[in-house]
């Protein structure tokens, strides 16, 4: 047993435990990103950093073993500011968007990419429900709105923006029974405060949002990988066919892990603003496994290596591995394999362990 002090309280702990283990069982909360109980520790993110006052050094609590005489500070000013810096640094290379540009600028904060996905999947019922729950006076608003969403639509840079307003109008006017729509319109007529004063994030809850920074022409093409090859484009949405076609041209700019991202949570917890100039690591690329629907987006990866460690544990080959060194190091399929052939059976587990949206499942 070793005797250590955590935040000025004495603890006895068996040798071989990490500071994180001991702190956790004592009820302290230390944030982590690259750590997962049961997997070998790696200490890459440095978010769990603590200070040992006995040596005046900073150590990652997830792998630092308790040692006699340690005097650990887990929540002091110095520690928190280093943690904040670690998250800021991670965000500086995080060339990714938590939310799609269209959703961000929508005065009503409507989940446009989800609407498109539902339409593309021909799930009209769900699309109607979404429209009603998020945008109950929507019909009128979209007719009045100058279309900030379409202006922000990334597809615009490729050919032309997705006809978002018409898609929404199609849902509300053509599919929803007229009377229902009328009721709703009257009911919310006076609440219609958003449009006149320009794009205010009216109904979107204020969450941290990461941005992409400068986007190169070549990088733009990466989103098209997620779209179907040839789709029927039409500005006017006259029937279900044209709606589906138009919705399929959506590039799904939103992050699949928007509501399940440890990095985003931590950014909010530490009230961090997204850094302005993003560091360009390697150009944005998206790798899609056409057999399992696994998608890897390199710029969302924080190189924590959780997936690699899990793959080693799962013993499924071929799997994911680290490649290169330093700032350009990245998670990848092995040099000798195609991305299509990796993780044939266990990709769900690997996706689940990713703390960000770097590894996710295409719908």
């Amino acid at each position, binding site marked *: 047993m070793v005797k250590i002090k955590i935040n000025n309280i004495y603890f006895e702990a068996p040798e071989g435990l990490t500071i994180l283990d001991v702190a956790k069982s004592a009820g302290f909360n230390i944030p982590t990103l690259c750590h997962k109980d049961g997997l070998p520790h790696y200490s890459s993110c440095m978010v769990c950093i603590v200070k040992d006052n006995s040596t005046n050094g900073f150590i990652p609590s997830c*792998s630092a073993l308790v040692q006699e005489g340690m005097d650990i500070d887990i929540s002091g000013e110095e520690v928190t500011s280093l943690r904040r810096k670690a998250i800021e640094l991670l965000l500086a290379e995080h060339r990714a968007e938590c939310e799609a540009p269209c959703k961000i600028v929508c005065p009503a904060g409507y989940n446009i990419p989800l609407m498109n996905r539902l339409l593309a999947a021909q799930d009209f019922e769900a699309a109607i429900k979404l429209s009603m729950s998020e945008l109950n006076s929507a019909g009128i608003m979209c007719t009045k709105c100058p279309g900030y969403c379409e202006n922000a639509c990334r597809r615009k840079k490729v050919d032309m923006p997705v006809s978002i307003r018409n898609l929404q109008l199609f849902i509300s006017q053509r599919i929803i029974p007229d009377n229902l729509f009328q009721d709703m319109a009257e009911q919310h007529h006076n609440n219609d405060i958003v449009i006149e004063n320009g794009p205010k994030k009216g109904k979107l809850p204020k969450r941290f949002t990461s941005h992409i920074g400068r986007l190169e022409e070549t990088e733009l093409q990466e989103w098209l990988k997620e779209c179907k090859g040839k789709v029927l484009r039409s500005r006017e949405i006259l029937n279900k066919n044209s709606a589906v076609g138009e919705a399929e041209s959506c590039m799904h700019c939103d992050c699949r892990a928007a509501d399940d991202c440890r990095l985003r949570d931590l950014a909010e917890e530490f009230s961090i603003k997204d850094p302005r100039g993003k*560091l360009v690591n390697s150009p944005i690329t998206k790798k899609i496994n056409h057999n399992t629907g696994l998608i890897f987006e390199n710029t969302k990866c924080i190189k924590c290596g959780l997936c690699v460690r899990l793959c080693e544990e799962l013993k499924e080959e071929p*799997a994911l591995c680290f490649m290169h060194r330093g700032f350009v190091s990245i998670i990848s399929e092995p040099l000798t394999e195609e991305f299509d052939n990796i993780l044939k059976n266990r990709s769900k587990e690997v996706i689940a362990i990713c703390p960000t949206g770097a590894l996710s499942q295409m719908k």
Partner: protein
Amino acid sequence: MTEGCNCQQTDVDEITAVVEEVVEMTGRGPEKVILILQEVQKKLNYLPSEALKHICKITEITPEQISGVSTFYSQFRHIPAGKHTIKICAGTACHVKGAPLISDAFKRVLKIDDTRNTSADNLFSIEEVACLGCCTLAPVVQIDGKTYGHVKPTQTEEIISDFLNSGHKSDSLHGDDNSKDIDAEIRIGLGSCCAAGGSKEILSEIVDIKEKYDLNIRLKPVGCVGVCNQTPLLEIVTRENINSRYTNVSKHQVEEILLKHIRPRTINKRIKHNIYDLVDTFISDDKLTSQINIPGELREKYLNNFLNYQVHLATKNSGVLSPDSYEEYCLSGGFEALNHCFNRLDQNAIVDIITESGLRGRGGAGFPTGKKWRISMVTSSDLKYVVCNGDEGDPGAFMDRMLLESFPYRVVEGMIIAGYATGSKEGIFYIRAEYPLAVTRVRNALKQCYEKGILGESVSGSGFSFNIKIFEGAGAFVCGEETALIYSLEGKRGTPHLRPPYPAVKGFRGQPTLVNNVETLSLVPWIITNGAETFRSIGTEKSKGTKVFALAGKISKGGLIEVPMGITIREIVEKIGDGVAEGRKFKAVQIGGPSGGCIPASEADTPIDYEELTRMGAMMGSGGMVILDDTDCMVDMAKYFLTFTHKQSCGKCTFCRIGTTQMLNIITSLSEGKAALSDIDELENLCKSVKDGSLCGLGKTSPNPVLTGLRYFRDEYEAHTRGFCPAKKCRNLIRYVVTDDCNGCTKCSQECPVNAIPFNPYEKHEIDNQLCTKCDNCRIVCPENAIEIINING
């Protein structure tokens, strides 16, 4: 390298055959991956994907492991390289002497762009290497095995044609004639620096002259003498035991030097010699100016100064011992310490001596060696290891290379003692692949030791068995960190991890592993023989003994020096180094490479001591000492080191991976005059975070060059925010102009690679700044020194 390797497609069958042959030799375990990749690349010139696949197929190596490892180490390439590789040294000493201009010049002449580092005809590839370890000959370029020193950007074409015409044969010359009755012994340095200085040509010239006059002499190649900037170095010891040293010897002087000391044997030849001598006197006045006629005392004054301020422990008998000779090492007292250990001392007593001596790790951090040994000794395990850390990757440092090349037996002895003291059975030399000569010498030493019973079962009949093998590193600076080094030995990516557990408790293959630096181990025999007290008597309160430094940069007499701890920087610069070169102003000294910092001239009375150097913001580091003069820009130096650490970071932890990138970005914009004062504050804060938050020593110390820069030269940083580079070094802030001294000789115009200087004979030339690439060629060739560098902004 096989012939015809420059063809892009290699037959799949051939690849398979090569892989199988290699694997047959190396074995199939996962820890063999680096060795297998090295051998395959040696044979195929690169690593085709078919080869990787086949390796995975026939060994225990997984595709994930082979991908991770082969992309981590910079030695491996996945696309074919040119037939010949031009290695441009990017070490500190070369950097301050203009290596970036050399690199640009080669790329320009060979029309190589950055996307593919190979010329269109696949003849040459360019590679920038961290350090070739010939710092005193900076800037240095190596084409295949041939080294060129003191290279100028204007010489690139000359060098390429020289290389192509020389037939690039590899010289293999050895000493001969072991008969006792000789007139003189000729000692010639064959360390890497000397070889780069042309000592091999000198050696072959001596052989010719010996034939010609039938001289009764013995040729003896010796290791590094330490006077590396004066190479090649020749020493003649006559029968009467008179010792004469010659520096900077050129080929045509050899005959003269030899005949001055040694008389030809036969009468005929003697007459011939005299006639030749007479003719020479008449037809050339060369002799009057050659250094042979300079009075001996004057010539040797510098040499003596250089050598007298030093204390040789690790480098004992430098320039005397033949590095390959087991007998000579024994005659000079070699292996006495080892036998003393076997006969008189038990494990505890040895560790006590090392502890009492106050010896601290010479790799940089200065951890007490005795303490490390004790941890390893008391950890119980059937299998323990001793690793000699020879992964010296620090640009501007070459001590370990020299020690391994010149005193391989001493390091081996130190290692066996360490093994005996800690109860280990196996030793491993981890040596950078960039040091082929060191590998050869150590390999030979090990072979000899096995033959003489110094290694293997029951060493010297003591009952203690010890085996040593060599592991060649694959090009990753971070592997100098002991935990990363162990991962590398195990065939993994060389990423460090947090200690404890210390390698001395749980290291290679999970067993207690003692990792000691080359210099540390080579001090061990001396300490055992001479006693802890004697060692303690040298040095300061907390830093005992001596330290080997590679003295380079803008110094008159650079080289490899071993000095007592406590000597001041000023003594080193002024006494040993004979002051700053070309009479310029001593500005600062960079100690400790990318982990260290620049100590200004005003603080030159700082003694060499672990704590003192750390207090100054620098670090002992592995022992690179680069002298800077007033033409060196501190922002540029910081940028240089950050570029290095950024490139060498393993990429594991956030602070080092992203922090160094951001630091580099800010410092780059500073050097381009695009940063504001607030950026300097941001840089400083970032440095502090990276220092605190990084996982290993590489990251923790990477901000040191910037922090010392800000501490001692803040005004220079601030000047850059105004677009002004006081040292006139930062390319974006300077321009070249022609002064009125121009006599219109047109040399600059002819030499300009981009035609930025119109051809105007007998008129003052003008430089078109729109076209000028600041390659420095014009300034080098101008006979009137009429080209000046000025600041764009004021």
